[in-house]
């Protein structure tokens, strides 16, 4: 763990990777670490609105190995995205092969960002990583299932976006009237199944 001060009231903690960040954030919530916001990122956890002794308290973190798995959510996907053929070619397969390879993975929501309920899903092998579009699309429909680098994601609402679109889902990704508004909150395990 490496600590970086962020102004007067926050601390950014650098860890090994997204999995470690998720584990640290989950542990901190469970351990009752006082913070207004605990925000896991791709390799960091931001603790915002904290007491000055935070760094001392985080020293008790046992490391990423101890974390308990989150709940599993199956996301039913219709594989009809405009970039499906492009990704299939890049992966040396066909569209059915893309669906099979993604469906065979157990992904985990590492962190949310970009939009409410937009989860960065980790677990795609590095050799399947794909570059973002050079120019983002002005409007990506809600429910689009997408890839960028080694991240998978599902757009909870229509927005501009530069990820490669593989298909779509009707899963209720974001609902402010639910007790847990984000379907894929950090820590959730995710499996794509064919609709």
């Amino acid at each position: 763990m490496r600590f970086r001060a962020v102004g007067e009231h926050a601390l950014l903690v650098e860890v090994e990777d997204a999995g470690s960040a998720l584990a640290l954030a989950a542990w901190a919530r469970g351990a009752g670490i006082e913070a207004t916001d605990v925000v896991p990122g791709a390799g960091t956890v931001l603790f915002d609105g904290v007491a000055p002794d935070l760094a001392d308290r985080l020293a008790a973190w046992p490391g990423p190995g101890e974390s308990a798995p989150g709940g599993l959510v199956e996301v039913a996907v219709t594989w009809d995205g405009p970039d499906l053929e492009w990704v299939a070619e890049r992966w040396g397969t066909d569209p059915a092969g893309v669906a099979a390879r993604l469906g065979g993975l157990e992904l985990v929501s590492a962190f949310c960002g970009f939009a409410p309920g937009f989860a960065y899903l980790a677990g795609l092998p590095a050799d399947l990583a794909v570059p973002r579009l050079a120019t983002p699309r002005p409007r990506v429909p809600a429910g689009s299932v997408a890839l960028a680098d080694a991240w998978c994601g599902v757009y909870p609402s229509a927005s501009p976006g530069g990820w490669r679109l593989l298909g779509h889902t009707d899963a209720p990704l974001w609902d402010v009237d639910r007790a847990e508004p984000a379907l894929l909150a950090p820590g959730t395990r995710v499996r794509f199944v064919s609709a």
Partner: protein
Amino acid sequence: MSAGVLHVVAAGTLTTVQDRGRPGLAHLGVPRAGALDAPAAALANRLVGNPPEAAVLEVTLGGLEVVAGVGRWVAVTGAPAPLRVDGVARDLARAAWLAPGARLRLGHPASGVRSYLAIGGGLAPAPVLGSRSTDVLAGVGPPPVRDGTVLPLGVPAGPPMPHDTPRPPVPGPLRLRPGPRHDWFAAEALAHLAATSYAVLPASNRVGLRLDGPPLPRVRHDELPSEGMVLGAVQVPPDGRPVVFLADHPPTGGYPVVGVVATEDLWQCAQLRPGERVRFAVTPG
């Protein structure tokens, strides 16, 4: 007294409902939102006897016209715009009685950007995730107020307060502490930032105060993996022009943060107009 409504006859350029926002949801991708000039919003609430968490109207560059369905105390703070009730001029930062059917008009401010209208009992549209704040980036909370919007009012909690402590009239430079990625910039970057004056760009909004000036020299040019961002973070995109993150900032970002503006100084960012100049003063980390 029963609850009533406030009719918005004219909404102006951008008028939103704001309270103290919805902190604690950044990990779900939800910005905190809340009044950009928080001290002005708090003062308006105190003047009409509201608790600090009551929702007010944040009015951008004036042009607001409202009619109350019931009699209530009102107060306007923040950017000094001419205020009239049924055509009669009223003082700012002072409780005024708005009789049932009376028309309140807020003109264009001579300086500053955002004025705050508090009304006894507060505005009471349905809260979303614990807050009545409109978030313009992520679209959480009540939609921006439009001509014809009718806003429910809460029940008045206390009597109006005639006096309060005024804000210091001449703001100083924005106090800045080193940020988590200040080492991605040349060693003198913070000193450079403090030695320069920046012009406020027209693209500034509730998400960020966008600044133009000499680009900050970087020593690291690799991509920063997404990480959590705080209110007041001074993020520097590849063009080198700093952006101060305000209440509707995205909860995570991928550009390095060179410094963080002190919370007490953020209200100034809410009131800076495009073309105005801003300076920073670096304080120890």
